[in-house]
């Protein structure tokens, strides 16, 4: 498909059009501070926001906490096939979960446990990337997404999350970044809110906060830089 003449034509039209300067010049701004201030801690704010968008949060202090809460929830919901994409979660936590190492996303999976890149306090957002073991489809196709993270993965705002990713990967960004805020939803039928239209119906976050074994050495957080 040779596209060079079309490309040339469009660029030429743009350049010709732009010889006429814009009429309406707007005043210059800005200090870049647009959002309401909130003096609470990152953790407190994340908890509030995450709950507001129907995320389910369990704050854990220890490994045992996590084990106990997870098995409770698992029994309650009757999840048959629990998958986990992070090998170190399975070994370190002794998780009773099936591995996911790529290939077809399992149709039978009832829930999947993954790590994440970071967490955004202002919006309750979980940041995921295709460079991690879970890839693109697993975390959106599986009906329940369970994220394990630590409090030191919290950042202030979306912009900080973006900066963190750019710092980590440099020019070799993952092919896809996902800023996921709560369970999938739609309002397309008379604005009635329905959760779980294509993506997960439920999103859980197990957040290790202070005193935990995994606060600074969170397995899911180990970066995996993709070489081109």
């Amino acid at each position, binding site marked *: 498909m040779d596209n060079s003449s079309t490309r040339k034509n469009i660029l030429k039209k743009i350049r010709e059009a732009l010889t006429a300067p814009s009429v309406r*010049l707007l005043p210059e701004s800005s200090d870049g501070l647009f959002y309401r201030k909130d003096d609470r801690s990152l953790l407190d704010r994340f908890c509030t926001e995450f709950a507001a968008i129907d995320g389910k949060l369990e704050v854990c202090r220890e490994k045992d906490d996590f084990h106990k809460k997870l098995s409770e929830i698992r029994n309650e919901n009757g999840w048959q096939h629990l998958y986990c994409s992070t090998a170190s979660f399975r070994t370190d936590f002794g998780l009773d979960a099936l591995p996911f190492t790529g290939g077809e996303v399992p149709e039978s999976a009832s829930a999947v446990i993954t790590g994440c890149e970071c967490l955004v306090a202002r919006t309750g957002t979980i940041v995921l990337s295709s460079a991690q073991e879970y890839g693109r489809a697993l975390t959106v196709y599986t009906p329940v997404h369970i994220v394990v993270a630590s409090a030191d993965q919290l950042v202030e705002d979306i912009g900080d999350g973006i900066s963190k990713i750019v710092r980590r990967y440099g020019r070799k960004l993952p092919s896809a970044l996902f800023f996921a805020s709560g369970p999938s939803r739609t309002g397309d039928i008379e604005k009635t809110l329905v959760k779980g239209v294509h993506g997960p119906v439920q999103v859980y976050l197990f957040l290790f906060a202070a005193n935990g074994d995994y606060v600074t050495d969170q397995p899911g957080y180990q970066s995996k830089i993709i070489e081109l």
Partner: protein
Amino acid sequence: MTSREKVFQAESKAKAADLKHRAIINRVLKQSDDAFRKGKEQFSDLEKARRHAANVKSDTIARLDYYLLEFESNFTKAGGKVIWAENAQQALDAIGEICAGKCASVVVKSKSMVTEEIHLNSFLSERGIDVVETDLGEYIQQLAGEPPYHIVAPSMHKSKEEVARLFHEKLNAPPGLTPEELTLVAREKLRQKFREAEVGITGANFLLADIGGVAITENEGNARLTTSFPRVHIVVTGIEKMLPSVKDLGLFWPLLATHGSGQKIAVYNSVFTGPRKQGEVDGPEEMYVILLDNGRTGILADPVARESLHCIRCGACLNVCPVYKNIGGHTYRATYSGPIGSVITPYLRGMKENKHLSYASSLCGACTEVCPVGINLHGLLLYNRRSAISGHHGSVFEKAAWKGWKMVSSDRRLLDAVGGKTKNFVINRLFSAQWGDHRKLPVFAGKSFSRQWKEKMNQDNAGK
């Protein structure tokens, strides 16, 4: 009056009198309005945020060639391929060629107004390809065989009973399902399609020059699935969707969410920088971005209308427009409806046939007030009216009438040459058709003010 205008007038009249339509639109838009009010609270100073966004967009548009090339270079380095298209046909041909190359029989799509603009679905269907809309609202519209009613909420005008009936008729779903159950039916049907499809097609909310990225905003997860399973991902986008940097998303994502759906941030905001990389577990093997002009450089060439290219398609101006509320989205018979549609459609599809849309406004300015990127929408509608007239698209009769009005009204002697009755008669004959049935023409007094004043002065003087 062109035939398009006549149809527009007739359909507007009918819709405005359709009480069922009015009831549902008012209910839905009231909810949008409440959500918007709440979403806005996240901003400490929304005006400042809007001003900044407008600045970023006008700077980007002023150097569009530069940013397009930067985007192209970065996206290509990451293994993606950029295709330029001057018009709809070139874009369609490119998509057709890619699909043929992959022997695609199923194509999944996530919501995209640009693909509506180029009529992609009928093009692919004619080639025997099963093209499936996966956004719930678009899926409903596709089942109903209707174009989207609203640029953000495509099936906003349908009651839940109508959707239930549609699913019953077209999908064999049990009758009388609730919105929750209907959603579940769509979920199950479409999950299969995501896995089957060879090609996934999406639009773009933003193009990011510095990383060669495509940003897509959604709430359902269908765009994420569309870009995960199929082997090929095609993005179809207008050239104006550019932002200089991935860092601009820190403002543009919340702005879009608040103005589009009243959320702080949409559920899924994704950035795609190319096909699957080495070491990644899944994702498409090929990714294409089709950069579409299709009339946009024509808008760019007009230094005043240019700012309409700032639009981020949030739909807020539709939601607040009294005309849109009354006549509904389909009456415009254009891909883009509401105030922004009325502004850009004459440029995209011909000034002469679409100039009547510039009058589909009460000039109340609600659209301008709400626009997150500061587009002077009602000002541009006025501007288009002027351009249409000076571009000789007005009717000869109308022009002659106004010329006569100007001559007489700017000359006191001529104006006072006849009495009120004659004036009323003449004005009625000249302007009543354009004035319309629904408002009264102003009535001239028997004697003009100037006459009365003079007479009164004379009387007073005589009495002294």
